[in-house]
Structures are given as structure tokens and as C-alpha cells.
């Protein structure tokens, strides 16, 4: 096979028809970021691999494209924007609150031929330095405004909480192995195993509490129902559920409550999330079209101790939707 005629596995060209759609999508999203006064930046395409592999962030190192640089250190092709932006805000802007937006490509390895791309276009925003729920409200406001501008029919914003889950695990007092099993059951919604697990491991809980755990992966929608059914008394969880409730009320006031769906069984993939986590879906795309969350402990690792929340649109997936 002559290498100059074909592309490596996972690589694609974007021709003018697809590019037209891509540029339109980016234009609409950028308009919203500008309207909310987010500074548009372009982090370096290259960072030391260590940026992504440090402190157990949860990014799979095997997925990152890296090479040995001149200094002998490993250099990575941009795999994520949140980490480089955390580095930039902590070391260059150094002030909070900071509002940063970006549009660009992230790269990952595709070791097989299952239709996955090695390059993904993303467009996102990070709101750094605001601890209270106003930050969640602003971010979701940006998301819903962009979704309207993009004319996406009936999108869903599925919201969970890393804070709720971490505290809930503490309340349940399980061993490390039991926790691992519990989180596995929750992330995959393994209902068959959940029944057995609850009956075996949580014999000491009340019936109400056992019922709650059993329905948790299937109980989603209005946050108030979730709050009502929560069968424990805990301040951390109460505060977090209250925050999510405020968010739902805000969405109601702004007219996008219909898009929201709260699911407290969500297990965040990345370890840097400390509070709300959310993903967006719409019919016609088999994967999420945006994702984000709060990460209050990340910038501390770069020397700036402050809260942060952000999200990004998967433009590559949006193109699939619009392309029809």
C-alpha cells in the first residue's frame, strides 16, 4: 500500500462540506462565550506528559499521544483543555474570578479500527474562582443558550454530583472492595447485581434506606423527588442537594428546566470533579454532546487554591448531528 494515498488509522480529513458545518457550529458557540465575556485563548498544543498523568487525575495515560522531546522528557499532544487552562490561569492570569473559553482539537490514540477518531474538536468554557451556585447557574445558562442557538431539538442535560456520591459512600461504610463493587454497579446500572448486593451488604440498614439504594440508578428526573426519598440525615449531602435544587429553580426561571434530568447514581469518570458533574445528550448521536463539572481542588495543584467549574461541547459529535 502506498502511504501517500491513504491516512493512518483514526485520522480523517475534513472536507469543505463538513468544515462548513463545523465552522457554523463553532461560530454560534463562540458568540455565546463572547456574550458572557469569556476570554478566548488557545493553550499550547504541546505540554509535558506529566501535566496529564500527575496526581491521579484519571486520564488513561495509554490513550495520550506522546513523544520524546529534545530535552529527553515526554511531551504530550493536547488531550484535554481543562488541565492546560488550569496551568495558565494559575501561572499567568493569576487572578480570580477568571472566565476562559476555548475552541480547538484534542488528541487520543485509537488502537483499533472501530470507527473512532484520533482528533476531536471541542469548544468549552471554564469559570474559575466562584464557589457558590451562581457559577453553576452561569455555566448552565451558557450551555442552554448555546443549545438554543444551535437549534438542537430536545437536548437533555443529565446532572449528578461527585460530592453527593463521595459522601454517600462514607455514610454506607463499606470496605475498599465493596466500594469498588458498588461504584461498578452504579456506573453500569447493573440492576441484577444491585438487589443481591444491597440484601447482602446492607442488612443493617432500614427498609427505606435499602429501597433507596435499589432504585437509585433508575430514579432520575426532578431533584425534589430525589431529595424527598433520601433516607439519611447528613449535612454535606443536604447542602449539596440544596445546591442542585437551587439550580433546578434557576433553570425553571430561565426556561430550560425541561432539559434537566438529575441522576445521583452517576459515577464521574475523572477524579478531579468535586461537585456537580453533567453530560448532554440528544437523539441522533450515540455519545454525549457536551460534558463538564465542578473541580474545586485542581488549581491548587498549580499553586492557586480556588474553586472552578467548566464544560465543553464535543463539536465533532455535533457535526454528526447537523450533518443530516
Amino acid at each position, binding site marked *: 500500500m502506498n502511504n501517500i494515498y491513504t491516512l493512518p488509522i483514526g485520522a480523517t480529513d475534513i472536507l469543505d462540506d463538513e468544515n462548513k458545518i463545523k465552522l457554523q457550529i463553532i461560530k454560534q458557540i463562540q458568540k455565546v462565550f463572547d456574550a458572557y465575556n469569556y476570554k478566548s485563548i488557545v493553550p499550547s498544543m504541546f505540554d509535558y506528559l506529566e501535566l496529564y498523568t500527575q496526581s491521579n487525575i484519571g486520564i488513561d495515560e495509554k490513550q495520550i499521544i506522546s513523544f520524546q522531546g529534545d530535552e529527553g522528557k515526554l511531551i504530550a499532544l493536547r488531550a484535554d483543555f481543562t488541565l492546560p487552562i488550569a496551568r495558565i490561569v494559575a501561572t499567568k492570569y493569576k487572578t480570580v474570578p477568571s472566565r476562559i473559553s476555548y475552541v480547538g482539537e484534542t488528541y487520543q490514540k485509537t488502537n483499533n479500527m472501530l470507527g473512532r477518531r484520533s482528533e476531536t474538536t471541542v469548544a468549552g468554557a471554564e469559570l474559575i474562582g466562584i464557589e457558590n451556585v451562581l457559577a453553576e447557574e452561569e455555566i448552565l445558562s451558557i450551555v442552554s443558550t448555546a443549545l438554543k442557538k444551535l437549534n438542537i431539538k430536545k437536548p437533555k442535560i443529565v446532572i449528578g454530583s461527585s460530592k453527593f456520591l463521595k459522601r454517600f459512600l462514607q455514610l454506607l461504610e463499606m470496605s475498599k472492595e465493596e466500594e469498588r463493587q458498588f461504584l461498578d454497579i452504579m456506573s453500569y*446500572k447493573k*440492576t441484577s447485581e444491585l438487589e443481591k448486593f444491597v440484601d447482602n451488604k446492607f442488612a443493617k440498614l432500614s427498609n427505606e434506606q435499602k429501597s433507596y439504594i435499589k432504585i437509585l440508578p433508575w430514579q432520575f428526573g426532578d431533584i425534589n423527588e430525589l431529595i424527598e426519598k433520601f433516607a439519611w440525615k447528613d449535612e454535606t449531602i443536604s447542602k449539596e442537594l440544596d445546591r442542585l435544587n437551587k439550580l433546578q429553580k434557576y433553570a425553571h426561571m430561565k426556561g430550560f428546566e425541561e432539559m434537566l434530568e438529575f441522576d445521583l447514581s452517576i459515577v464521574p469518570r475523572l477524579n478531579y470533579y468535586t461537585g456537580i458533574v453533567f453530560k448532554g445528550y440528544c*437523539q441522533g448521536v450515540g455519545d454525549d454532546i457536551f460534558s463538564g463539572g465542578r473541580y474545586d481542588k485542581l488549581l491548587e495543584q498549580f499553586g492557586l487554591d480556588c474553586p472552578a467549574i467548566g464544560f465543553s461541547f464535543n463539536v465533532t459529535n455535533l457535526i454528526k448531528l447537523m450533518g443530516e
Partner: protein
Amino acid sequence: MKIGLTKGRVEEQVLQILEQAGYNIKPLLDKKRKLTVEVDSNQYIFAKANDIITYIEHGIIDVGFVGKDVMIEQSFKDYYELMDLGVGKCYFALCSFANYDTKKFTSNARKIASKYPNVTRMYFSSRNEDVEIIKLEGSVELAPVLGIAEAIVDIVETGSTLKAHNLHVIEKIQDISVRMIANKVSFRFIHNEITKLVNDIKKNSKEN
């Protein structure tokens, strides 16, 4: 709703379960060479297990019935595993001749043959043992018999194939059965239909 079924034994077992749950499976039994059939408001797709998972990944189908063995081996795992149907029960096991533990080896890493290299790697990694994995496509019992490997990691059901080659189960690795998986987006948008399917199957299996 687009429902994927793994062709072959899984298909037979799942169709029986669907029939018991009150679903009309006659058009599915009469499909002859067709790989996709519409019945009532569902489209049934018949394919190999790996492909069902690929279709789920791309959102081409909403739910799929596949064996846990293929699910473990495939790298894509971003779906919901809603049910264990309790059929197609078998298990992964390390198998070899009876003298496996005591046999003297000439190379430093044991050669293990398997159709499931990922499962094999995970198993030996959990035992901190360095092995050389030889991927085979099938009839893996041949490997120790022909001498290309000292042992195999394979699926065991009755154990009769092993017995026929003088092989034994050295250690059981993991239980396998047929599972129902669902695309995450589908789960959010056609939640009611998917839940109904799960409950129809569950209700009926309780009655049995």
C-alpha cells in the same frame, strides 16, 4: 427500539426468554438469511457479539444481548449493563494438563494461548505473573496439545472438550452469562421502552 441479539446460541436462549415474556418471536424464527427483522415496534438485529457492542457504541442500536465474555474482552465499555439474564452460563478458566504447576519450563515467561488476550493479560497481571500471550481464533484446546503453549485461558461450559484433550481446569477465573446492555443516550431518551423490556423479562423469570 433497536434490539441486537448475538447470533447463535445466545440468540436461541434470548428468543426463548422473550417468548416467555410474551413477545412475538415467530417472525424472528422464520427470518431465514435475513439479519434484521421488524416485529411490532421493534427492529431486531442479528450479528456477532463484538459487533453488537460496536453498534451500541455508535448508537446504531439501543439495547443488545451479548455474553459477558465478549464484554470483558472489548475495550469499549461505555454502556449500561442492565440485566444478567442468567443464561449461557459458563466461566473463564486457566486450563492445562494435570502436571501444570510442577512442570519445568525452558523459557522464563509461560506461553498462554487464548481467544481472549485481554482477559488473559488481566488475570496474570493480578497474579503478578509475566506471561507471553498467543492469540488464537478458536479451538484453543489444540494449543497445549500441539505444544504452542503450556496452558490456555478459555471458556468452559461442560468441560467435555477439555476432557477430550486430557486438559483440566487449573483455576476458575470468572463467571460468564448473557447480559442485556443499553446505549447511554438511548437509555435517557427511550427510558420507558427499555424499562418495560427489562421488567417484562424480570417478571417472567421470577414466575419461573
